[in-house]
């Protein structure tokens, strides 16, 4: 991470940005539409924290973004926003770990798992299943076929199946992956909406 003196451009940018958040958006504008870039960066940070302290992923991502925004607003020379953000994210993670022994214990608490023998859990699973069935019906035959085929296989077969699906559709495996992920997210959102779950 580089943290040098303010450049003329930085000073100009931070002067134009009223708040740290504005400054971050201005800085991200160089990487495309700032709203999308901000969301993408936040999503990556959440993914990063999920790997370490999933219970606090969203909160820590916001803390890291807030610090990043303030640094940029102060005129810190940030050569690469993603790499600078990673540096901050690691620092925030370190701090969270230092204070988080009690919280980490909660993370591994097996009682937080769905209990397979619990009748309420069984009833909940019935509800989710019904909601998903309705969402699949609403999504249409093509979407249903894709989601069921894409997520059907296990292990090594998984790669082969997905490659075959991509070949059949004459698109790249990356394009197919994006399509399947978006579709799955849409279905998850549909189920959440039907069941009134809080959005992640």
């Amino acid at each position, binding site marked *: 991470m580089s943290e040098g003196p303010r450049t003329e451009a930085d000073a100009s940018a931070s002067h134009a940005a009223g708040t740290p958040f504005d400054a971050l958006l201005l800085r991200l504008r160089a990487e495309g539409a700032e709203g999308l870039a901000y969301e*993408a*960066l936040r*999503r*990556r*940070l959440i*993914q*990063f924290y*999920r*790997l*370490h302290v*999933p219970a606090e*992923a969203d909160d820590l991502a916001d803390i890291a973004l807030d610090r990043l925004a303030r640094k940029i607003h102060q005129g810190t020379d940030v050569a*690469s926003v*993603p*790499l600078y*953000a*990673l540096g901050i994210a690691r620092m925030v993670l370190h701090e969270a770990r230092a204070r988080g022994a009690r919280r980490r214990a909660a*993370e*591994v*608490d*097996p009682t*937080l*798992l*769905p209990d*397979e*023998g619990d*009748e309420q*859990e*069984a*009833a909940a*699973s*019935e509800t*989710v*299943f*019904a*909601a*998903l*069935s*309705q969402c*699949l*019906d609403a999504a249409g035959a093509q979407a249903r076929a894709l*989601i*069921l085929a894409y*997520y*059907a296989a*296990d*292990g090594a077969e*998984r*790669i082969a199946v997905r490659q075959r699906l991509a070949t059949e559709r004459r698109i790249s495996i*990356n394009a197919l*992956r994006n399509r*399947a*992920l978006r579709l*799955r997210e849409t*279905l*998850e959102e549909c*189920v*959440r909406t039907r069941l009134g*779950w809080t959005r*992640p």
Partner: protein
Amino acid sequence: MNEPTDETLRSWLLRRLPAQEAEPLEQRLLQDDAFGERLREAETDLLDDLARGRLGDDERAQAAEYVAATPQARARLRFAAALARVRGQSPPMRFADGDRHAARRGPADRCVRWLPRGRPAIAAGLFASVCAIAIAVVGLHWRSGVAPGSAAIETTVTLMADRQRGAQAEQVRIPPDAVTIRLQVEVDAADAQARYTLSIDDARPDPFTARGLVARQAGPYRFVEVAVDTKALADGPHRVRVAVEGAQTPPALWSIETRRE
């Protein structure tokens, strides 16, 4: 940097990757959207495998820890379990070896649980019918495959070989809005080329017969399957017969009693 394998990504998710290997991946995660998508997919696949009972003990414990951490992940696991159930890939259940809850739950409930702790999944690689088959080990049940109220309700009835010609007819509940049911009947191991005829002797208004059926294999079970209009299974007793075509062996027979409810 070499493209990490799916296995590497899974190890990373399960916190098994050494720090020196994880660091460049973290860097890439922050810089590369497409890589973030790959990681998202690896996470999704992990949840699917967990929901289907396809993980070994160690991986299952680590994945369960990962899932337990947040309500979001638990919600995604529920979704994965429901998706597995749509595909008939739910893990087999424990009721057959003394599950104290089994008697109080409906048969469909037994198909829906995830995280089969304490018992390894015995049906890795089984396809759509495994859940119904696992259920039917203790008898004969139905399960709904589509949301209640849907016109496309799909119900599976499974007849196991060891339940033939019992002293009492097996009770079969058919959902009132079911239009067709999927009838699966276990058959003995035989020549792979064997063809079967399945008939319902007293189906109304006409006898039901399906010929030229090919047996399918699901783990230890071999069965034939037909779709039957529920009109053919009006409330009351029926006899289901399965015979190997061209063979001299006597047909297998089941007595069932249907009831719409």
